């Protein structure tokens, strides 16, 4: 079974409202981030991104983001032709500010997450996910 980005399952928790970014061509990563943050400074910490080091299937890579106290988390696949992968918005009734989904990765690249916290500050984290042709192990 292959997932396209549009078919990607969203398993956001609680009263989370999840929004998929439209699949049309998007601005590059920097622009995307600037749009999300309004140009605010971005710190680190308080946001975790869980992704495999090596994708078992580049067409459907499971990722999870978690940032207690966040109101919104954006996920970018920085090496994809259209980097925007997902934006999760957490309402005031959300039990936890975490979400998991599966994204498609065209090639080895950094997956990046940016979270907007309740106080209006931003944090980011990224991890390299390798997409390999495989074989020859063992």
């Amino acid at each position: 079974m292959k997932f396209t980005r549009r078919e990607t399952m969203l398993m956001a928790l609680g009263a989370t409202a999840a929004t998929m970014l439209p699949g049309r061509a998007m601005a590059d990563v920097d622009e995307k981030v600037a749009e999300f943050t309004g140009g605010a400074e971005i710190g680190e910490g308080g946001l975790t991104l869980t992704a495999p080091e090596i994708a078992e299937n580049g067409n459907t890579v499971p990722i999870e983001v978690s940032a207690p106290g966040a109101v919104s988390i954006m996920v970018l696949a920085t090496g994809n032709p259209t980097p925007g992968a997902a934006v999760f918005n957490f309402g005031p009734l959300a039990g936890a500010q975490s979400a998991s989904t599966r994204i498609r990765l065209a090639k080895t690249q950094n997956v990046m997450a940016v979270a907007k916290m309740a106080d209006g500050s931003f944090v980011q984290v990224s991890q390299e996910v390798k997409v390999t042709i495989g074989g020859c192990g063992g």
Partner: protein
Amino acid sequence: MISRRHFMQAGMAASALYGASGFGNWGRLAAQQVLTQDDLLNFETSGNVTLMHITDIHAQLMPTFFREPEINIGVGDVIGKPPHVTGADFRKLYNIESGSPADYALTYDDFTALAGTYGRMGGIDRVSTVIKSIRADREDALLLDGGDTWQGSLTALRTNGQDMVNIFNALKTDAMTSHWEFTLGIDRVMEIVENELNFPFLGANIFDTEWDERVFEPYQMFERGGVQIAVIGQAFPYMPIANPKWMFPELSFGVRQENMAAIVQEVRDAGAELVVLLSHNGFDVDRKLAANVDGIDIILTGHTHDALPEPVLVNKTYLIASGSHGKFLTRLDLDVRDGEMKGINHRLIPIFSDVIAPDREMTALVEAERAPYQAELSEVIGKTDSLLYRRGNFNGTWDDLICNALIEEREADIALSPGFRWGASVLPGADITREDIFNATAMSYPEAYRSEMTGETLHIILEDVADNLFNPDPYYQQGGDMVRVGGMGYRIDINKPQGKRITEMTLLKTGELIDPAKTYVVAGWASVNEGTEGPAIWDVVENFIKRKGTVSVDPNTSVKVVGA
């Protein structure tokens, strides 16, 4: 890495932990031709818990020859650290006398001559003798198998792993983890685990792809000597990438470091006083895991086939490497008191098949498993003038032979053979039997394909595999060796990033550089793609050897390595 002396001191420093390790002085005894079983098994029982570790036996029930690697390069933080030490450096590091039994067992040089002196190693009936002897010292010693058990021989292939399941049940194994087991296909694995195996098949990092739920038990608790012991299993993390995913389409693996930290916490909360990780991660992955995850006392490493005479201490975790192919069994006596490990006595016991008496009960079981296949196994196919071995980061003579066979039998320009680390050695001057060929090729996706590839595709493949081996971050390594190439030479700079390591790809038969745009005929085997077609690799190799009568393999000088 720590030397024996440092090991003792480190032990003292860490909350009065005491320790001992090494081979004792049997090396010298053997040199005087008085090596006996007692020398190999002599071990002062200590503490209150005994662990026995065997791993990566690759279905080798009989004593075999297995030459250790000459080239085993470490990258990033582990340059020059064990297990990335070979030959004279290894002897120096562990104070091993040249020409001694330890030298023969643990290094590559002078292998043929020393094999003549010291003979074959391993044999599950000898291993059984050692296990029984340890159980005589401590009845409730735990026997833990690190996996790669059900694959690697003709009999395991023909019986879908049944021979190994029967034997490891008979050994009274307490738990195992896995890698090549899954190449039997998920249905067969589930059949064995649910109906046939007498002990748990552990995999804390095996989840189903749909619901992300565990498929197997992550750990097993044991009570031994009044101590609560948690044995956590970690299967090979890159199963669906390095081996055919279509054989177990609904399973997901991965290192999953956070998952491991959570499991360690869970077993500690459940009262574990000793936490043992039975791992098939590969040594460097385990070294990183030990540095990043607290609370694991012992990691029994596997997958990368390293044999180390001493533990490697990382964080507060002792990493144990017990070799492969049944050459060694590790005994660990641990002193666990007041909820923590206070002492460790370690010995990597070499299974010299001419010194350790076979356990007759086990010999009979092995013979029964092999009997239906005896004629097939023992048929002589040809002879070799060269030592045939597998290990080495870039090549080995077994794969040189396989590549030569692929090029000639399948009329190809270039041959590719996967960087497997399993496969017993054959001495120069010896007959090559069908069993020998299967020991280097027996697996469930053996089709020898013949296809056309552009120079660019070949470059991408080599770069991809090189990064699986030489990525400086161990979590991005898969633990195999470099794909072996016949008919083509190349230069590799291991310190460059992916895409920049491989240059000067040259077609050997013309001496011309490979043209990225040109198409070449490539033969290979063990493709992970479903539906690959071609004759089984063992038939290709057998036809080639039969046709030649006697084979010899020229020294391989076609890979230029830079930056090692």
